[in-house]
């Protein structure tokens, strides 16, 4: 490989390229197999990864956000409500499901980004709960506690994405889009985010306008969560409050921490592993939760820095030896 190409890859980032490649390759899976289990797990992973990216973007700035379900709901309900007006164009819906939560995030960000550390954590948790209640008290718009069911399939280039395979392909597409957005944002501003993550006081004293990047990250993170909501509603053909319960943010946080917060591959690995495990444990009925808990303990205790972080450290040590 010539130096120019190496330079380019380094500038774009190895992990980012790998992440994008993973999702490009993932398009092949629905075309190669018809296995329902693979479809199901993969579809959940595609939704989960996008939601986890939304958490991960904030983690890049050392902000732990529980607000993801709220923004997912905004994106998902935008699509479901648009469906009631017979809007099913995939491009329009994708843009809308990104834009609506992102716009709402602007005033909310002004409110919550003033808070630091654990305050931010707890307040975003409250935000997610408020969203649940807002859904319950607005039956006219959101269907209240029943949600909106019978959302029409999206229409991509004049084709209705109806079959299992098409739904999954579309989910892969949304995941790829979310990966591109996340990778572009965190790669382009990697120094800014890393500086804020590690020492925002120092960064600010060096002249970095910290709030600007936090706001940008929050808005993009909200938009990405909206895409996850779109993907979820498209998979279920239903927008239901129980899909956006505040407690599911715990899952996405677990995914990104278990996968490892240092690299964009972390959310991908973490989501894949945990979604797979959930499905495995789901058929163990009442013990599912406990097994999930044990898995969290094991990974946190045994693999500090998450799975990707630990693997990277291991490889580095081996190379150094």
């Amino acid at each position, binding site marked *: 490989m010539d130096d120019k190409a*190496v330079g380019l890859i380094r500038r774009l980032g190895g992990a980012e390229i790998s992440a994008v*490649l993973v999702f490009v390759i993932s398009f092949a899976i629905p075309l190669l197999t018809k296995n329902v289990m693979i479809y199901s797990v993969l579809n959940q992973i595609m939704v989960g990864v996008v939601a986890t990216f939304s958490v991960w973007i904030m983690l890049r700035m050392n902000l732990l956000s529980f607000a993801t379900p709220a923004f997912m709901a905004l994106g998902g309900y935008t699509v479901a409500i648009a469906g009631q007006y017979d809007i099913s164009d995939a491009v329009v819906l994708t843009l809308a499901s990104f834009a609506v939560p992102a716009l709402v995030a602007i005033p909310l960000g002004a409110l919550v980004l003033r808070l630091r550390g654990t305050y931010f954590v707890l307040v975003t948790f409250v935000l997610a709960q408020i969203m649940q209640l807002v859904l319950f008290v607005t039956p006219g718009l959101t269907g209240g506690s029943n949600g909106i*069911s019978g959302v029409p399939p999206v229409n991509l280039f004049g084709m209705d994405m109806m079959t299992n395979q098409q739904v999954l392909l579309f989910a892969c597409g949304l995941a790829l889009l979310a990966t591109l957005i996340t990778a572009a944002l965190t790669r382009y501003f990697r120094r800014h985010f890393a500086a804020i993550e590690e020492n925002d006081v120092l960064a600010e004293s060096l002249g970095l306008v910290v709030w600007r990047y936090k706001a940008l990250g929050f808005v993009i993170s909200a938009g990405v969560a909206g895409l996850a909501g779109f993907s979820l509603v498209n998979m279920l053909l239903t927008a239901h409050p*129980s*899909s956006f319960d505040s407690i599911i943010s715990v899952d996405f946080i677990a995914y990104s921490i278990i996968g490892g917060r240092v690299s964009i591959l972390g959310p991908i690995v973490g989501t894949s592993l945990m979604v797979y495990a959930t499905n495995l444990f789901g058929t163990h*009925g009442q013990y599912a939760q406990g097994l999930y808990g044990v898995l969290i303990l094991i990974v946190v205790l045994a693999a500090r820095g998450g799975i990707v972080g630990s693997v990277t450290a291991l490889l580095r040590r081996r*190379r150094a030896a």
Partner: protein
Amino acid sequence: MPMFRRIQVSLVAATAVIAGLATPALAQSGCELKIGSMGPMSGGGAQWGLAMDGAARMAAAEVNAEGGLKVGDRKCHVTVVAYDSKYTADGAAAGSNALAAEGIHFIIGPVGAPEATGIKPILGRNQQIAWNGSYAKDAVTTRYPLMFHLGPGPGGWADSVIKEALKHWKIQSVALIAPNDQGGTDIVTVDEVAYKDNGVKTTSEYYQRGTTNFAPIITRVLATNPDAVDTASSPPGDAGVIVKQLRLAGFKGPIGRNGGPGTEEILRVSGGMDVLKDFYWYAGPPDTPEARVIDADYKKLLGKDQTFGASLWGDLPGARMTLKAISVAGTIDDVQKVAEVLRHLPVDDPNLGKGVWSGQKQFGIAQELMYPFGVGIIKDGKEVGVTRVEPKL
């Protein structure tokens, strides 16, 4: 070229998990029929999900005790795979897929309205029959013909329960209390109509699911001076606290439960008959000697006491009918054929008696199992008894 190697390594790490999923499903040996059970098996509604699972396991044990289910000229051993769908729409959708991946076409469950909403659209894709026990307004619809309903729902019983209550008490106004999610609002809206049809004025009060102390809600409800309070579909644990706190607040009128089983638990949580005092409820399948046989058989077949009460009685017929339909249809794969046979099976359970395929009136599709049910009355701290109501279309 360390950079390039790093890409390779990280690629491998990321794809390893996805690749790991591609392991082929279990190879089948002999004739083995796997059926699914689904519902919340952890958290608040766990008892209902576990009752579904108990019903599926009992029905399976019954046919296995006779050497297996006769399908065509084979005898199939029936096993049950449980899935915890967590009372959420996506939990049930994921469960449908997970069970489909194990080659399962028949699901006893799910339980809750959100679960029913989530699984309905997917049954067609996965070619699965499911039996929901929810009280959702659209528990079954013509659009999703593979969904069956373990009835009756409030639409089937509310009128009878109210009429029975009116025989014992003078009720001109009632306050309904239920959670603010679909599991609450769907039932309350049906109950409200039934009360109004009987000339009773209604007010409804919703609480946030997870509320543990109902004192403020009760103060609010009592401010309207209702003659009766109906706990509708509040989970039995919640309803027990509501009853206890209503009585502590000095409420003397009758308390109703127009929303499903759980009276034993309500009795326990509230503090007993003296607290409950005046109570009317939809009692599910009547407590008859024939029904009690189910409990004895359960212990015999599965080696432990059944702890789900009448919930299990209500869920069992769905499991039994499904196995019967598979046997009659003579196939364990052709779901459409099994469904068609099922729709025309006579409704006659050895323990619960004769029933009907109802639902035409309420849902526009007759895919709801309705057996005789009871309306229970407790008056002045004494159980007056359970009145048997025969199902009618």
